[in-house]
Each structure stands twice: as C-alpha cells, then as structure tokens.
C-alpha cells in the first residue's frame, strides 16, 4: 500500500534519512521506533508530504506520490500535540476537512453534520461537540485529532507520537483502543514512537531506526526475541552486558564458558553477552557456569522483585525475579551469589569490529 523506496533526506549536510526502503501492506499498522534524532518523524512527514525527500520515492497503492502536495495525498495525519484549531469547536474541527472540499465533492450541511456525529460517536466523544479544544483533557484532544484526520476518509493514517503527551494510565487505555479501532476500520497506518512498549503492543510490524537508517524491521516478537544488533537489544528494554572473549566458537568470560557455534571461525575477539534481567537466575556462588556477583539494592515492583548486583569487574547487573522466587532466595545485601543466564545473545564488540556488523548476534542457550 505504501512503498518507501530509497528515501534520503539531508538537513544542512546532516543525513537525517539514509536511503531507507519499506513496504507497508494494506491494513497493516507499522511503528517507527527509535530515539530522538533517528529520523523517524522526518520519514513520517515525508510520507505525509509535509517534508520533501532529497532522493527516493513514495508510492501509495502503486501510484507515485512523490511530487504530490500534502493537500492532495489524502493522508490522515495526527500531530504530536494534536494541532487542533483552537478557535473552533470540536464539531467544527472535525468538519473542517469536509468543508474545505471543492464545491463539487463537498457534502451538504446536513450530510456534514451526520458524518461528523458518526465520527465523534466512533471516538466516543459525541457529547463534546460544542466544546473548544482548551476545554478538553489530553486524551479527549487525541480523540478529536483522530476523528478530524478520519473525516477525509484517508487512504493512509499517520500518527506522530500519538500517546507522547498523555499520562501513563490514559496512554495504556488509548493504545488498546487505537489498536481495536485500527482493526475495525481496516486502515493502513504508520505511527512514530520512542516507547518500545508502545511499539511492541500496538504495531503489526516494528521498524527500529537509528541515525537515519533501519536497524531492524520485523514483527514485535521477532524484534524482541532476535535483535540483530546491540543497539536494538538495548533499545528494546533493560539489558545486562557481560564482556567476554570469543574463541573458536566459545564465549569465555569471568566464571562462564558458553558454546557459540556461529562464531566458529573467530580465533580471538572481544565480545559482549547481552542478557535481559528476567533471563538471569540467581544461584549459590561458584556453581558451574555462573558469574559471581555481590547483592546490592533490592526493590519490590508489584508482582516482581528487582535485585541490583555488582559483577566481578564492577559492572552493574540487574535481575528480575518473581516475588515467590525472591522470597525463597532470601537474599541479603552484600552476599555473594552466582548468576546464570538462561538465555543470552552474543555480539562481537562493535568498537573493535565495526566493519563486521553483518556477523550479527547469535543466541546462546545456557545448559545447566
């Protein structure tokens, strides 16, 4: 439905987008995920026609839209701060897109009223039609912005940080609601976010961006389970990193020695073992493949317990346990324990092997 072909954007010599390509399928909801400055908003604005690409093509349904102005693209856009028309009521905001149509396709006053009321109903704010934007809460403004964007029956819906300005609880509710709405309308959509949880929960596919390039494109499960680079791994949640040496297909570090058959051909290289906090198990020190660490601060976070530890080289480590397991262990501050990765991912140290980025990570499964 949306084809992004080798799109490049340069701002005053700074490459904001470096020849990126993506195909968004009909009815798909894609998240552009990345830190600020990764080019995700620029890409969204180029799809919308609010920004002109310095190279490459945008196609909608196979038709070239690169030269089409934003007003002719028939794209619904929800702005980060909603950009509601402050001097118009909610009703007039939503009706705007219908009222500015050329006379030949403009619906009558009555048709407009019916259409706007349908939209307000759809986003559950039918009772707020007479209010002004300043009289609404953040979540309500978000719904108005969405209804206004949907009024023009867009081929594509684009959302810039749709939940960025909302507080945590409203965010959660709205994002589930948006997902259901998307499914019921069957729209093709792209949204920008810097929040990995949001991207993983809402999107069909996630594009992880960094410095104007796509680091990885895949379903939320693929991205989370098989990050292709340390950047993606780090970006998708808390992570522990243990430095090691990679020698003839084994990852050898302080207290551990795991098989890493993917790296069979490497004689000796620096590597980093990434482990998620919930993939670490705490045992007695010095048992088999375990890293010896000192227990530090412990925090109870609702259903889980988080234990901070200090590793053999002074590195900060973090383990997440169930409350039951935590109680069973009865850890005391300063105690020596062993930590065992249940599941880890090995990357060669990029600082030393920048050119070998293709030799990307491989899963390590600890055998205990």
């Amino acid at each position, binding site marked *: 439905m949306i084809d992004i072909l080798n799109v490049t954007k340069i701002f005053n010599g700074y490459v904001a987008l470096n020849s990126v390509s993506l195909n968004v399928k009909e009815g798909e909801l894609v998240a552009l995920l990345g830190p600020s400055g990764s080019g995700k908003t620029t890409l969204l604005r180029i799809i919308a026609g609010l920004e002109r690409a310095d190279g490459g093509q945008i196609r909608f349904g196979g038709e070239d839209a690169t030269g089409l102005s*934003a007003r002719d693209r028939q794209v619904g856009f929800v702005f980060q701060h909603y*950009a509601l*028309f402050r001097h118009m009521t909610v009703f007039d905001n939503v009706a705007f897109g219908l009222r500015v149509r050329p006379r030949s396709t403009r619906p009558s006053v009555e048709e407009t009223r019916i259409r706007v009321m349908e939209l307000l109903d759809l986003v559950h704010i039918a009772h707020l039609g007479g209010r002004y934007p300043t009289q609404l809460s953040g979540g309500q403004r978000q719904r108005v912005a969405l209804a206004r964007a949907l009024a023009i029956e867009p081929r594509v819906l684009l959302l810039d940080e749709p939940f960025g300005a909302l507080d945590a609880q409203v965010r959660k509710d709205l994002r589930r609601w948006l997902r259901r709405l998307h499914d019921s309308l069957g729209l093709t959509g792209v949204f920008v976010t810097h929040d990995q949880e949001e991207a993983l929960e809402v999107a069909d596919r996630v594009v992880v961006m960094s410095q104007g390039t796509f680091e990885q494109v895949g379903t939320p499960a693929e991205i989370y389970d098989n990050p292709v680079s340390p950047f993606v791994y780090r970006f998708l949640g808390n992570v522990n990193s243990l430095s090691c040496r990679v020698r003839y297909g084994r990852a050898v570090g302080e207290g551990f020695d795991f098989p890493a058959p993917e790296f069979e051909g490497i004689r000796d290289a620096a590597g980093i073992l990434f482990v998620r906090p919930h993939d670490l198990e705490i045992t007695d020190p010095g048992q088999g493949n375990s890293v010896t660490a000192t227990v530090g601060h412990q925090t109870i976070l609702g259903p889980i317990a988080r234990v901070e530890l200090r590793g053999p080289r002074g590195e900060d480590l973090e383990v997440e346990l169930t409350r039951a397991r935590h109680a069973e262990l009865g850890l005391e501050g300063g105690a020596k324990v062993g930590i065992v990765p249940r599941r880890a991912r090995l990357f060669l140290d990029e600082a030393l092997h920048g050119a070998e980025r293709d030799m990307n990570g491989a899963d390590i499964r600890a055998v205990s």
Partner: protein
Amino acid sequence: MTSLNIFPQSPADIRPVLTDPPWARTLLTGMALAFLGLFLFLPLVAVFGEALAKGLGAYVSAIVEPDALAAVRLTLLAAAIAVPLNLVFGVAAAWAIAKFRFPGRGLLISLIELPFSVSPVISGLIYVLMFGAQGWLAPVTQSLGLQILFAVPGIVLATLFVTFPFVARELIPLMEEQGTDEEQAAMMLGASGWRILFWITLPNVRWGLLYGVLLCNARAMGEFGAVSVVSGHIRGLTNTMPLHVEILYNEYNFAAAFAVASLLAGLALVTLAAKSALEWRMGCHGASTH
C-alpha cells in the same frame, strides 16, 4: 565569634522575603501616581478646560469652522488609506516572517522596524528629497503631472511610512508563538493556501490584529512631524488636525486650538479604552493557548 542568626526573633519578623515594608509600598505607589497625575492627567484636564474656556458655543464653532472640518476630513482620509494598506502589508510581512525561514528575513525585520528608529521629521525630509522640485523622482512625477509634495498624496505617503510597523510588529511574535502546526493540519485536510489564511491563521491572531490596527490608526491620526514637513500647511487643503492645532495656537487662538486638540485627546481616550478592552480579551485568549 557570633553565630549567624538564621531564625527570626518574633512572628512580626516573619514576612515573605519579596514583600517590601508598607511605608515603601505606599511611597512608591504615591510617587508613581503623583507623576502620572502631574504629567498625564493634568494636561488632559487642561486641554478640555482650555477648549471650553470661552463657552460651549465657541468650542462648537471652532470645530465646525470650514478649515477645521477640512483638517478633520484630511486626517480621516489619510488614516482611511494608510491603515488598510498597512493592515494588508503587516499581515503579509508577519505571515512571511513568522511562518517561513528565508534568506533576507533578518533584513526584512530590520526594515519593518526602521520607521520606529528614524525621527518622523527625517522621514518627512526623505519624501522632500525624493519628490521635491530637485528630488530624485521629480522628473518622473513632473512628467506624469503628479503633485506629491505639499499635497494630499505626500501626506498619505508620510503617514503610511510612520505607521508601517504597527500591525506587523504586533503579529510577528504572536504568529511565531503559535507556530505552523495548525496550518499544516489544515493542509493535510486538503485546505488551500487562502482557506488556511482566512480560516486558520487570521482567526487565530484576530485580537492581536485588531490591537495593531488600533495603534496604527491612533498614530496615523496623531502624526505630526513627518506630515508637517511634507504638508506645506495650506489651510483647508493640506492641514491635518495636528497641524491645524499648531497653526491656531501660533495665532494665539487658544480656545480654537484646544477645541481641535480636544478631539485628538478624545480619540486618544477612545483608543485607550479600546486597547484595554482588547488586552483583556487577548489576556483571556492568551491564557487559553496550550
């Protein structure tokens, strides 16, 4: 060695740090009020007092006198031409400066401010240099048979020049603060450039625009220096109200001079009231911008 006394001795000493003692507040407020009374309020009273010194009849006859009426008409005409032109120009300039980044933007801002930094008399002289008998543009105007200097066109031009910045200066900060998000949203919804201007941009700045027009109008009607240089002071033809006041005054016709002056003072009071009302409106709306 004495220890620092951090805590106040008695409750009386506890006063918010940023509040001055009562006597200081009274003194400062009193001084400000006395100053205003002496330099603003008393002269205003004096204007109306002098205007009515010879009775209501003399006051009315000074105003309905043909030369005075001609001056009123000319002043209204100059304002009626200068204000709409500067309104259109101000909106265009503010729109360009606030919503776009282009080379020469800084220069344009400086040029808009220029009339404020130049003495009005100099502005008038510039027109004399351009359109006078030996002026740069004299050959052009003479060949076209146009009389600019010492005639109505000169007065309108001078008024245009000095009132140039008011609307633009009022709108630029307002438009910059509002940004271009709403315009972009309107564009995404399919609105054309004119639609965006009339449905989004202008309604959003309407109070600021009115305020700018009001100030522009007050200056257009009250301008003395620039107009004085280009007018030629021909009674009944090229005299505006401020110039007429001066002439009457120089002829020791105080009651008539103050009578016409009282009209200008009245305009100032109306402007002030309208300005306060607008500021109040803008305050309400300003607070509501997210």
